[in-house]
């Protein structure tokens, strides 16, 4: 009987995975369609990829988005590391509950709410202090908030599992606390730092709603340009662009996951080997 339930859930698993992947695979297929009409197969062609290279608007937007994503993901990891360290290492401090709330709320808050409220802040700040100008700066700040929340949660769950006795051993041997954290704990949470950086990067690169609110009239990010094109219907150029993004991100994530898992396994083996050494 139990196998009956398992086979039902496995069928659902397969259907679910197909549901997640078939639309993307079809999109990739259509990006090689020579015909500009989506319902007609006009033969294999890479011409839409070629025309991407000549689309100034898309290229400019892509460069801006990459710049924003680089700055935001770096900021987000710093924010996330500090917040996670505070929450994991300090059991009690004023504002602990507030900090916990503020790294969890952005994960569920509808983007449209975050976007409009942050815009109103930026506008009021600009009125009062003459800063910030809407555009790159405001988009990066907004992205650091919501990517930082993801980073904090990821790093926190990793930091909790770190054996503190190693860091304490380093301190017994005369390391300063900062040095001990840097040399001992940081390498152990490196996979979480790397994956939260990567996640922040892709989240920032993809964000449409918050960026639309907080950016000024001059800055158009890649998702904003894609959205305005997609709103008009399916376009072959966007198919090609989407394929490039999906394949690039997918390859990066799989590669990073593989590398991190291997590094982790090696570290575990070294640790075990170290523990097996007779104490002396």
């Amino acid at each position, binding site marked *: 009987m139990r196998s009956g339930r398992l086979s039902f859930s496995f069928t*659902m698993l397969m259907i679910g995975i197909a549901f997640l992947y078939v639309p993307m695979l079809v999109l990739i297929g259509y990006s090689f369609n020579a015909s500009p009409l989506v319902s007609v197969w006009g033969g294999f062609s890479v011409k839409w990829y070629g025309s991407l290279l000549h689309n100034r608007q898309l290229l400019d937007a892509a460069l801006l988005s990459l710049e924003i994503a680089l700055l935001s993901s770096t900021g987000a990891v710093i924010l996330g590391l500090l917040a996670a360290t505070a929450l994991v290492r*300090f059991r009690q401090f004023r504002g602990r509950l507030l900090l916990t709330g503020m*790294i969890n709320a952005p994960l*569920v808050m509808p983007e449209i709410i975050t976007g409009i409220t*942050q815009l109103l802040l930026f506008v009021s700040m600009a009125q009062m202090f003459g800063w910030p100008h809407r555009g790159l700066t405001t988009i990066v700040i907004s992205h650091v908030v919501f990517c930082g929340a993801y980073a904090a949660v990821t790093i926190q769950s990793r930091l909790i599992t770190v054996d503190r006795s190693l860091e304490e051993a380093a301190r017994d041997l005369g390391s300063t606390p900062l040095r001990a954290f840097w040399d001992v704990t940081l390498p152990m949470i490196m996979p979480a730092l790397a994956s939260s950086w990567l996640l922040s990067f892709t989240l920032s690169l993809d964000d449409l709603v918050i960026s639309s609110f907080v950016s000024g009239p001059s800055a158009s990010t890649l998702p904003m340009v894609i959205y305005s094109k997609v709103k008009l219907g399916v376009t072959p150029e966007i198919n090609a662009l989407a394929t490039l993004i999906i394949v690039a991100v997918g390859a990066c994530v799989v590669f990073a996951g593989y590398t991190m898992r291997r590094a982790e396994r090696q570290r575990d083996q070294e640790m075990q080997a170290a523990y097996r050494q007779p104490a002396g």
Partner: protein
Amino acid sequence: MNAPSSAHERSAPADPPGPRHRSGLTGRLGRWLIVLPPLVFLVVFFLVPFAFAFKISFAQTAVRIPPFTDLITVGSGGVFGLSFNLGNYAYLFTDDVYAISYLYSIKTAFFSTILCLLLGYPMAYAIARSPKATQNILLLVIILPFWTSFLLRVYALEGIIRDGGLLNTALQWLGIVHHPVKIMRTTFAVYLGIVYSYLPFMILPLFATLEKLDHSLLEASADLGSPPWKSFFDITLPLSMPGVIAGSMLVFIPAIGEFVIPSLLGGPDNLMIGRVLWDEFFNNHDWPVASTVAVAVLVLLAGPIALYQHYNVREMEHYG
């Protein structure tokens, strides 16, 4: 000075602080250097903005930059004037579009969450029951779409469900339908879009609770003669409730304010509150009314967000 506090903050009592160990990472100052930057940054750029939205919801539109009136005006001779305008809130009740879109958003988010749960639960269950090596691969397969672009995935779904798309072609080819069914620009398309986009958020917390489930409980229940479906409802489901609630909140809350999905997949009737807010802001340039709509959405979401926070904080404190 530092020794007692450090004994207090360490969770392991078997680890008395040595004389050279100062509390935390670098003592009191270092502690605040770690706590304050994220705290201040998030208060200023995440929390304070809500106060501004609340304030501007009482303002009026004006032809100026920014396009709304000040609440506090300083007149000649230093007289303060306070203009408090409740008109935006009254306006939300007079124009039907707000009530309709508000209710429609709740309905859409609710049914999408149910659909997501119905699909996600068996999927999470199957992953949790897989061998460890397969589990990691399956989890990667589930998470991978979340890493790739959300916007592009909604666009990809559009390619499948549009009138001459693959889904209709397949249905006709299989002989299930004889004429193309209209999926695109319907409520169902919006449901499908939300399930498609948020499925990983449902599966991951469910998996986390189902994986921890003690299997011997089910065996004991079977030994005592309980049929599997009864064991499921008596044991598995109640024990996985934290995952069900966390997953459902992770889908329901963002779905309420969803803009991209109804805008790209829905028709003109599928007016969700996020779309109304967007139009109010970008098309009508009515910032005060848009702020009022945002406040109204927040009021609606306060309960679900509190529930989510409650479960989440408990989970984290449990680990910590």
